[in-house]
């Protein structure tokens, strides 16, 4: 048995290798990059038995077609529903299926959301650059030669975790999947430069409806809507740009800074979209409407902890699934079963078991 090797037949619109990002080098001007919907990405890795940071393919809107030229493994698609298929048959998102030599993985058309994660047992094995496999195309760093996939590329997978095969058939329970409601307002933590906006400017930002413009990519989403008024100049002495920062340059239109954002910049930041909603925004497309509401820092931290808890719960669920307690049917009672006497049929992994009982009177 060997690890899977994929050949890229159709690259898709923008398919890149991403992991949890290149942390530790922002002080030297190196952007973090990494998966745009971090929770969908991490849950996908857990499903296929990986460490949650293993590299996966971030698939944008129109997905790739890949053929398995060698080996076998398990895969799962999470995040946006882009019409995933294996050998032409629909495979629902959040579901682990096995793939082997000769299989063809493809995507038909987007049904909901914008970015999906194709996670594979063992992760995509590209060289680590500055401790990460994430692709940052602007500086041609990471991933496959620092660029998006192209036709004819070969992708190898890493060594899978020992119990990878047992992940087959595992489905992420609905309750653990992130909710990416396209109509939900984005929750914003005010600061660091909210004091450089007028009352009117703040009222516009938190009151008006904005539309995602065509300038929306992995670096940031520019919004169009009511201009946001500054107290004075829109420029500050350059400082750090955190993930989700809402920059407002002189033209007054907000730009939400995302995974590939530059590390520093000189525009005022009215607030920062909470991490959970950064992922939600990254699933929206140009033309989508966006509203901003305030959220206290404490509540935003709780949301992050909620997602961490969901990952923990999925790991426990995976452990139970792999330990073989999975295919237990509900017991079916025999016709004449009563509390004092009867039979029931139980199926475990398809094998039939008959359980019978009989109440025995107290022994005198």
């Amino acid at each position, binding site marked *: 048995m060997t690890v899977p090797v994929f050949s890229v037949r159709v690259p898709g619109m923008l398919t890149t290798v991403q992991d949890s990002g290149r*942390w530790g080098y*922002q002080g030297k001007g190196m952007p973090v990059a990494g998966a745009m919907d971090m929770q969908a990405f991490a849950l996908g890795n857990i499903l296929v038995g990986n460490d949650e940071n293993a590299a996966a393919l971030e698939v944008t809107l129109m997905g790739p077609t890949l053929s398995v030229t060698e080996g076998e493994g398990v895969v799962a698609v999470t995040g946006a529903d882009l019409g995933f298929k294996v050998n032409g048959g629909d495979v629902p998102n959040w579901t682990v299926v096995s793939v082997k030599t000769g299989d063809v993985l493809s995507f038909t058309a987007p049904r909901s959301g914008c970015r999906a994660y194709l996670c594979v047992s063992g992760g995509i094995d590209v060289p680590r*650059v500055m401790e990460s496999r994430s692709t940052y195309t602007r500086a041609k760093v990471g991933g496959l030669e620092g660029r998006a996939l192209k036709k004819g590329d070969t992708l190898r997978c890493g060594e899978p975790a020992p119990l990878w095969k047992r992940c087959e058939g595992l489905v992420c329970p609905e309750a653990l999947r992130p909710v990416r409601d396209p109509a939900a307002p984005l929750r914003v933590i005010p600061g660091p430069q909210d004091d450089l906006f007028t009352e009117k400017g703040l009222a516009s930002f938190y009151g008006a409806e904005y539309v995602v413009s065509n300038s929306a990519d992995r670096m940031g989403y520019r919004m169009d809507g009511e201009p946001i008024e500054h107290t004075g100049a829109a420029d500050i*002495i350059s400082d*750090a740009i955190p993930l989700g920062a809402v920059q407002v340059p002189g033209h007054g239109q907000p730009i939400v800074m995302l995974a590939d954002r530059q590390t*520093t910049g000189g525009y005022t930041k009215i607030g920062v979209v909470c*991490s959970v909603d950064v992922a939600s925004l990254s699933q929206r497309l140009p033309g989508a409407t966006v509203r901003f509401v305030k959220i206290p820092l404490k509540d935003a931290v709780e949301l992050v902890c909620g997602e961490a808890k969901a990952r923990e719960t999925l790991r426990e669920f995976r452990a139970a699934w792999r330990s073989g307690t999975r295919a237990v049917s509900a017991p079916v009672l025999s016709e004449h079963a009563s509390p004092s006497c009867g039979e029931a049929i139980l199926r475990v992994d398809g094998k039939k078991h008959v359980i019978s009982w009989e109440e025995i009177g107290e022994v005198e």
Partner: protein
Amino acid sequence: MNEKKYPRLLTAGDGCVVVEFGDAIDMEINSRVASLAAAVRKADFPGFLDTVPTYRSLAVYFNPATTDVDALYSKLGKMASCPDAGKEGGRRRIIVVPSLYGGEFGPDMADVAEHTGLTPEEVVTRHTAHDCYCYMLGFTPGYSYLGGMDPSLETPRLKNPREIIPAGSVAIGGKQTGIYSIASPGGWRLIGRTPMKMFDPDRDPAIFLEAGMWVRFRAIGKAEFDEIEAATAKGIYRPEILEEEAKP
């Protein structure tokens, strides 16, 4: 406007807090940023992810799911108020950047000479005579925001920026000088080029320069340029990094 008190902590989302020391481009303020950055990296608290030192503030990144956020805020507040936190003494670390001035690599040298009223030789002498302080890195990987260029070299930017400037270009833009770390568009006047790579993702470290270091340009000839370029291509070139007592 109400008077701001420094240092102050600014919330920058659920995974970042900024400690701001002032509102000016100033070496004293910047050295406090560097001191706190060193102290934070040394403390290595649980959930710590990254620091970004900039002109007048330090951003500290953390994972909110594994960090006690309140405790972090109060700890940073205390560390920021203690001016000597992590201070490494008054020594300067200087990185020597070899640079071939003029010719094909410095197409704007004549314009700079004309604007400043200096000969090209004098431009080189003055550009190499003053060490420049690296306030911060940002914009692109390995790009440094330098201060301290000889004021007599000030030359306005090009009216029409170039679409692509090769990596390693040494340039002047207004009062500032800098080195393009990757090929990118820009409007600064190109006066030379360094054969060393300011950014090489396949090298360890990918970026030699750090905020708080000094940059000393050294004029080289074509033969040395070729030598360094060859060593750089092989990944074996290491720049000279000097340590000197800070001048009073």
